[in-house]
């Protein structure tokens, strides 16, 4: 009993105990923060990389095309009945874009152009989750040619969006009755109480409306242009006053796209640069910064044609089949994607390829023999592995920090025991055994460790919880250079973090254990104090 009592008194009355508590607490907090951010990092990376490209990906090389993609998709669906949720081909090319911004901010970006079949593509991976306008205005985003939507005042002087957008937003509100993000996004930008940035109708539109009485004249303007979905990092910026990401360009802004022509072998031909004008119809956020910074999505058929990868007449009057760069396959939920990959590979190499071989040009046959058929994990292995390795580093860090805690506690307790020699003698003179005296200091360490762990883990958890706000605060209030987590260096625009309860418990247990271990030698030293010596000398 007296052990706990004295340990408690020492804990609250001796200032040196605060140092010990702080030492243990800081160690625990540090490990928790690093561990949580690392966990969040790996989790986010895995999650978003899984959502990036579907479960199984077929490609020859990043920009090398191959024919008969639809035929193969059909075969896979037939041979793996009930297992395939969706499959979709993609054509890709590099290019430059210039966003034809009404405010004349010249921005040229190099881009990776993805030609996608939007509806299929949305089913094949997590693309739809990252679409902004399609999220709040479900069903409005299309890559087919469209005019620019505009807002206008109706006869009651109310601000209105085009009918299509208003009903879509109403549908969204119905499905998500209490959505705080909608509240937040609405009215961030324009005069209207809606998410996103729309252009107001101009005088010409109003005149045309007055002439014709057709409401559509107010709702849309300009000739229809093929749609393009831009990576979100090209179109938004962080506004520190509103503490939100704002979109820089109104929906429907024109985008000039310069495509580098490539041969079927993937060589760039410098003889001609094609320029096209498209319309910005949505933006996409995959949470991988590099992709959101430079990926652009347009219609599969449109891009295929522009790249001359569609069905072309050869000089001899025969036709070459249309080509794609990639096939993405999505399996049904919980399917074993490793097994599926093996089956698909076998299907491709052993059945499909021999079957189409007679129709292939020699170069295609060679290329397709090297078709890479990979699961999402394998495909993104290089960067997943890199972070997985860092987990081991964190473990080593954890061990070192624990050791540091052991030594810290050891030193502090050595000092305490030294200081307390006389008291130890007195306590023994009252009949406490050596074991009991050791028990005092072990209890003390246990208390210090527990309080330190609770304190440190709370601080750590709180810090992790508000780590992004904390960073924003430092970067905006003190110095922008103090932004540790810049999206350019890391793949995500936010510091990811996951606090797992079991980790908190383990870290806490190790912190307590480390303090007790650290106090072991000092406690033994205390036990050995010969009471007469301790009492005699002042």
């Amino acid at each position, binding site marked *: *009993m*007296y052990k*706990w*009592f*004295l340990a408690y*008194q*020492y804990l609250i*009355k*001796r200032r040196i105990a605060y140092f010990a508590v702080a030492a243990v607490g800081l160690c625990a907090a540090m490990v928790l923060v690093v561990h949580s951010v690392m966990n969040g990092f790996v989790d986010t990376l895995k999650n978003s990389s899984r959502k990036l490209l579907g479960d199984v990906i077929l490609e020859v090389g990043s920009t090398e095309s191959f024919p008969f993609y639809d035929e193969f998709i059909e075969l896979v669906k037939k041979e793996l009945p009930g297992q395939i949720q969706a499959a979709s081909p993609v054509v890709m090319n590099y290019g430059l874009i210039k966003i034809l911004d009404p405010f004349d901010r010249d921005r040229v970006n190099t881009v990776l152009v993805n030609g996608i079949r939007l509806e299929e593509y949305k089913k094949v991976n997590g693309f739809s989750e990252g679409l902004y306008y399609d999220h709040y205005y479900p069903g409005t985003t299309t890559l087919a040619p469209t005019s620019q939507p505009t807002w206008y005042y109706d006869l009651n002087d109310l601000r209105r969006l085009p009918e299509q957008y208003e009903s879509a937003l109403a549908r969204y509100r119905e499905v998500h009755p209490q959505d705080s993000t909608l509240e937040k996004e609405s009215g961030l930008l324009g005069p209207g109480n809606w998410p996103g940035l729309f252009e107001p109708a101009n005088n010409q539109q109003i005149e045309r409306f007055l002439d014709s009485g057709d409401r559509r004249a107010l709702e849309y303007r300009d000739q229809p242009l093929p749609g393009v979905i831009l990576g979100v990092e090209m179109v938004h910026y962080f506004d520190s006053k509103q503490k939100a990401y704002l979109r820089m360009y109104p929906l429907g802004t024109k985008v000039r796209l310069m495509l580098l022509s490539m041969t079927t072998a993937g060589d760039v031909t410098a003889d001609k640069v094609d320029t096209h004008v498209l319309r910005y119809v949505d933006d996409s956020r995959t949470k991988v910064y590099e992709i959101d910074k430079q990926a652009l999505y347009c219609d599969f058929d449109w891009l295929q044609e522009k790249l001359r990868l569609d069905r072309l007449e050869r000089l001899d009057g025969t036709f070459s089949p249309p080509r794609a760069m990639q096939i993405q396959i999505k399996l049904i939920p919980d399917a074993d994607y490793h097994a599926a990959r093996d089956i698909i590979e076998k299907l491709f190499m052993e059945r499909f390829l021999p079957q189409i071989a007679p129709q292939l040009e020699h170069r295609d046959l060679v290329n397709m023999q090297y078709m890479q058929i990979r699961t999402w994990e394998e495909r993104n292995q290089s960067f997943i592995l890199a972070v997985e390795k860092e987990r081991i580093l964190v473990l080593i860090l954890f061990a070192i920090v624990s050791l540091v805690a052991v030594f810290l506690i050891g030193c502090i307790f050595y000092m305490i025991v030294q200081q307390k020699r*006389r*008291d130890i*003698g*007195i*306590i*023994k*003179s*009252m*009949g*406490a*055994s*050596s074991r*009991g005296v050791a028990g005092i200091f072990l209890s003390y360490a246990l208390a210090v460790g527990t309080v330190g762990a609770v304190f440190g883990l709370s601080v750590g958890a709180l810090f992790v919880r508000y780590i992004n706000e904390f960073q924003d605060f430092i970067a905006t209030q003190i110095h922008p250079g103090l932004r540790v987590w810049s999206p350019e260096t890391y793949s995500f625009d936010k510091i990811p973090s996951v606090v797992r309860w079991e980790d908190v418990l383990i870290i806490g247990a190790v912190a307590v254990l480390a303090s007790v271990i650290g106090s072991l030698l000092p406690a033994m030293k205390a036990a050995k104090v010969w*009471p*007469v010596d301790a*009492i*005699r000398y*002042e």
Partner: protein
Amino acid sequence: MSEMILQAERVTRSFDLGAGSKLEVLRGVSLQVRQGELLAITGPSGCGKSTLLHILGLLDLPNSGQVIYQGQRVLDLSSHQRDQLRCRSFGFVFQLYHLLPELNVLDNVLFPQMILFHSSSWWSQRGPARRRALDVLERVGLQQRLRHRPNQLSGGERQRVAIARALMNQPAVLLADEPTGNLDKQTGQEVLRLLHELHRSGQTLLLVTHDAEVAQSADRVLRLEEGQLIPAV
């Protein structure tokens, strides 16, 4: 002739001073303490009075000889048994009070009870222990100062708390080592009066002092000289 409670038989104690030299402090000391007596031990400074007291209170071990407590040969006990015996049967009062600085007066006095009882039985003993502590503190006249820390008390008050603490486990023998040595004359007298009161109520008391006047008031006075005990003249 009243009963013998504590006995020392040809106790020797020497200290190694290093380099082969030895300081023989006790050279075969024999002593008998009777139940209820107030025995004073005097002698010049450094003659070994404290050493003898510590050995009698089981705090230190002699090099040879035997200590017998109520017929029990103490040196034959295990150190754990000696600890328990010390806890139950001996109370120490030191010249420099030696209170625990983190604890208030009440907790200091309660502390021996906490050592006496195991964690499990402490909770049931808490009430009686507290009552006894208040009782003892009243006897030493400090019932008003329960929440004060030792550094908020005067020397005399501290020594009275120390006496209260020594009495807490109702020891068979109270061992006081120069209890007035650090106090001015008047406060020393008060503390002495308190000890005499205890003695009158039946407490066996062993008092070490080099103050002849203090020794005078004892039932019996022994003098330690050259490592031997001799009756004082």
